[in-house]
């Protein structure tokens, strides 16, 4: 178990990794990556039971699927910092011949990635299938999936949400990154998501809320969520985050969804994020 202070230090380094990867690649998606950094850090460093070396099947392990694949710089940083592959490899992000593809892929054999994602709306279905697959094999470990909020505009999600409730997939914890932003503007402007809480609830899910940018709250709610598994209902955490959290000029806007910082912006961003574990 790590202390809150330790987890915050890891999250700070993860945020530096996000900035530096996108800066070096001159492309990528820093906004959503920064917003979800506390959540994914807490998940991998505090809660998930995984084994190394990585195996695709992950028998007896908790699985994580990233549906909003564009926040790959976050995923890669957390995987590297948790020992799935060498941290130095982060400097290959989005380069030719790299295992760190623009969007996560299994093809290059990057440890920690179990499904390709990028085309949105597919991860929840995969997670429901994996949870049923585990159940069929008497494996009671958990399946986690992270989706974006704009991504919920894809109809496939609602097919999966229906199926998970129908099959009482109760060892599944979905988290929605509810930052309210998407490429063309706010969710409300682009396509209102309406009352997300009521929607998930009416489909039969157990709904939790959390501030995804408070490590204290993330730890508390994830622990609550895990404690509520096995009760006949899938669980969703509607996670309020701020896109770009941790870097002042990237916050409160959708502008940094898919834009990399330049040299000057990178220096400015890094000055706000403590280097705690050594840059790659």
């Amino acid at each position, binding site marked *: 178990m790590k202390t809150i202070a330790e987890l915050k230090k890891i999250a700070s380094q993860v945020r530096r990794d996000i900035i530096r990867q996108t800066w070096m690649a001159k492309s990528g998606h820093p906004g959503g990556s920064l917003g979800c950094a506390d959540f994914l850090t807490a998940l991998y460093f505090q809660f998930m039971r995984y084994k190394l070396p990585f195996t*695709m*099947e*992950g*028998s007896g392990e908790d*699985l994580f*699927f990233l549906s909003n694949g564009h926040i790959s710089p976050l995923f890669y940083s957390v995987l590297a910092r948790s020992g799935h592959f060498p941290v130095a490899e982060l400097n290959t992000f989005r380069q030719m011949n790299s295992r760190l593809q623009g969007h996560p*892929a*299994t*093809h290059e054999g990057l440890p920690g990635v*179990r*499904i*390709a*994602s*990028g*085309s949105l*709306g*597919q*991860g*929840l*279905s*995969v*997670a*429901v*299938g*994996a*949870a*049923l*697959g*585990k159940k*069929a*094999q008497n*494996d009671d470990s958990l399946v986690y999936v992270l989706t974006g909020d704009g991504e919920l505009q894809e*109809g*496939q999600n609602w*097919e*999966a949400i*229906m*199926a998970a409730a*129908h*099959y009482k997939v109760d060892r599944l914890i979905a988290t929605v990154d509810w930052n309210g932003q998407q490429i063309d503007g706010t969710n409300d402007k682009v396509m209102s998501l309406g009352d997300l809480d009521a929607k998930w609830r009416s489909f039969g899910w157990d709904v939790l809320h959390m501030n995804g940018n408070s490590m204290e709250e993330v730890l508390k709610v994830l622990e609550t969520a895990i404690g509520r598994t096995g009760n006949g209902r899938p669980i969703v955490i509607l996670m309020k985050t701020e896109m770009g959290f941790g870097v002042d000029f990237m916050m409160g806007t959708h502008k940094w969804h898919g834009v990399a910082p330049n040299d000057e912006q990178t220096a400015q961003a890094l000055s706000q994020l403590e280097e705690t574990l050594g840059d790659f």
Partner: protein
Amino acid sequence: MSHWDIYQSTGKKATRNGFGDGLLEAARKNPKVVALCADLAGSLKMDLFEKEFPERFTQVGVAEANMMGMAAGMATTGLIPYTGTFANFSTGRVFDQIRQSIAYSEKNVKICASHAGLTLGEDGATHQILEDIGLMKMLPGMTVINPADYAQTKAAAMAIADWKGPVYLRFGRPDWPVFTEQLPFEIGKAICLKKGKDVSIFATGHMLWQALEAVRQLETEGIDCELINIHTIKPLDSEAVLESVARTGGAVSCEEHQRHGGLGDSIAQLLALHLPRPMEYVAVNDRFGESGKPTDLLEKYGLGVKDLVLAVKKVLSR
């Protein structure tokens, strides 16, 4: 009846029945085989599986995109999922789900698709997909199989359980002559039904029976066709195709699919690159189908026995 002609119909049975029976056998042999179905268990004859292995059957409702994703997730945990719905909803409707979550992610999912092609019949063009082979064969790593009759479909449904990687298994709705029981089935291996010296016919799916009828007819006219069944369109048995065409000097492809992107294109590409020879396509020519009786539709859309006969003669005349 000629000495070579051992391929008499032992009765009519639908290829989808072959799938249902083959799936059941595969599941009895391999406990990792599971099945998902999008509200068509009866149509795909998956009810046999559902009855015997209820705990290994997942009904997903009318939600094919989710079915493909769930299958990918199940495969990730080491299971061998067979998905079942009509060919249209198995491919076109869910192409991106298959592309990203199954093919690119290299998942061991078996996409099993019934009611393909014109022989679906009366339901009409919305359901008569004629583009599915093309869609699936374009995906890197996807194996594409289109068996000819009940027996071959059953054999294929069993064989794919042991074949590593994603598979598209295409079959159909109508009762169709059963005539391949004595033929060995091996994924990726073409089957020569008849040796001949004048022209090579490469037929897949229901069209193998049509081709057989054409070969019989042509024989009475003194034309000696070689008949090869390409049940596995990808990976194509290139060696068998090239070896045959090198001897006969011409090729006719034969499939219940659009000309664009089907078996014919695979063969034409192979010949263009390695052995350019006269070739004709027997396939649907850039049109949607319509309602009608299966065999009437085959006639109307240029897939009749007489069309095959004409195609062979055309190759010989070139």
